């Protein structure tokens, strides 16, 4: 009996606390905002179906996997560096045509050598990553 009384008291206190919270939300305007937001959620619930959820989540997954790789420190720095270089190169302002002789001349430039060094390094790393994955994909398909 005393256990029932204390349960009732606890429930009564919880109801009072909930009512107080609702009054506060009503008075400061939050309840109205929540009600409006709820209609948007209701729209979402009516508009969505399983297929849409699966498609959206699938896309988010694939983008997330790419983003996961993209957020590695070296990758971010390299991407940022390449984007700065794209901006500096000013590609469309009177673009040069460089033939074999012109290319050989440009290779004497220290900055071009540095860029070429990066490209060679990148190609080596690309080759290693391709090897690693190609072996693994072959085994995964067996």
């Amino acid at each position, binding site marked *: 009996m005393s256990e029932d009384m204390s349960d009732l008291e606890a429930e009564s206190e919880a109801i009072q606390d909930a009512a107080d919270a609702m009054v506060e939300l009503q008075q400061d305007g939050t309840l109205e905002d929540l009600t409006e937001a709820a209609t948007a959620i209701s729209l979402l*619930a009516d508009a*969505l179906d*399983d297929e849409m*959820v*699966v498609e*959206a*989540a*699938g896309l*988010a*997954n694939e983008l*997330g*996997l790419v*983003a*996961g790789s993209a957020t590695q*420190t070296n990758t971010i720095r390299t991407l940022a560096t390449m984007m700065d270089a794209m901006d500096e190169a000013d590609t469309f302002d009177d673009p040069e045509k460089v033939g074999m002789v012109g290319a050989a001349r440009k290779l004497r430039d220290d900055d071009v050598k540095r860029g070429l060094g990066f490209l060679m390094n990148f190609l080596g790393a690309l080759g290693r*990553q391709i090897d*690693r*994955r190609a072996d*693994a*994909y072959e*085994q*995964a398909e*067996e």
Partner: protein
Amino acid sequence: MTDRIVIVGGGSGGTITANRLAEELEPEIEAGEVEITIVSDNPNHLYKPLYLYVPFGEATLEDTKRPLVDLVDRRVNLVFEHVTEIDTDGKQLAMANGEAMDYDYLVVATGAIPEPEETPGLGEDEPGHHFYGPDAATELREALANFDEGHLVLSVIGTPHVCPAAPVEFPMIADQWFRERGVREDIEITYTYPIQRLHGVRPTAEWMVPRFEERDIQTKTFFNVDNVEDGTIETLEGKELDFDMMIGVPEFTAASIIEEAGLGEEWMEVDRNTLESEHAEDVYGIGDVTNLPTSKAGSVAHYASGTLVSRLSSEVRGQTPTETFHGKTICFIEAGTEEGTFIEFAYDREPVVRDENRFLHWSKLGYNEAYWLTARGVM
């Protein structure tokens, strides 16, 4: 000197741990002070919770796997071999190709292996079906597609079993699936459980009672399946139950190398807070292979990996490990084909099952698609 961290097993526990270790120990790896290797006998990473959906045509086997190399940080070495022996004194693994691999720190993540063959009459080409493997799930898909009348029985045979929600979800999904196909009135569904309530997790059992009643799903408890004959289940209690289709949740076991290595008798015995082996130095366990006092669920491996990574990284750096795991577990539960709920608990927190709704069902479907981000260590 390079510290060699070897992880045996390329499932959820092993993959998430490897990725998080690679991120945490990036400076040490770049400096050549640490090497991380996953040894897996499967070049594919499997998301086994999707096997539940295969029999209902809601997922294909292709959806359940991805090449492990796609999900693992490039700094983690991959070796696709079967480990045949763990020598914890010599800190060495023996592999099926005859080669040996030394380690400084070992993480065992070999999972829980279904053993349908332990129950006579259960398995592929047997009277009793299951969905805890690709071939079995495919076979069940065909059987279910051609089932439009009779008595369907879902029996939980082994406890503990992986994925605590799946045996609850199967009859509820089946109920709604048969209704959508217009054949539910001609099908009787019965769910059986080996102990005196409907589920090992008490709040789940309590949640199930009214919901099974309103769906006209019959139940039998204290029902320990002994063998499955053609059309009849026989139990250890001497009971019999006739069926037209039977699906069993089989017994599960740890890989034999666990007991052979002295790491545990049934499951790998680890400290419930530190995940360190109770029997060997510098050895950790994660995931379904362990004897952690909680459900065998992927979420446990996910949350536990944070603690393992923190503690192992501290050891590598010569610091005192401080982080501890408190059993956080979360499981979605499908309540049919349109609504779902979830249960969350920890060692010191009782489970709470919320009322089911569409949003939680969509959350589960969404997570099924985005699970690979968890495996990759992104989410």
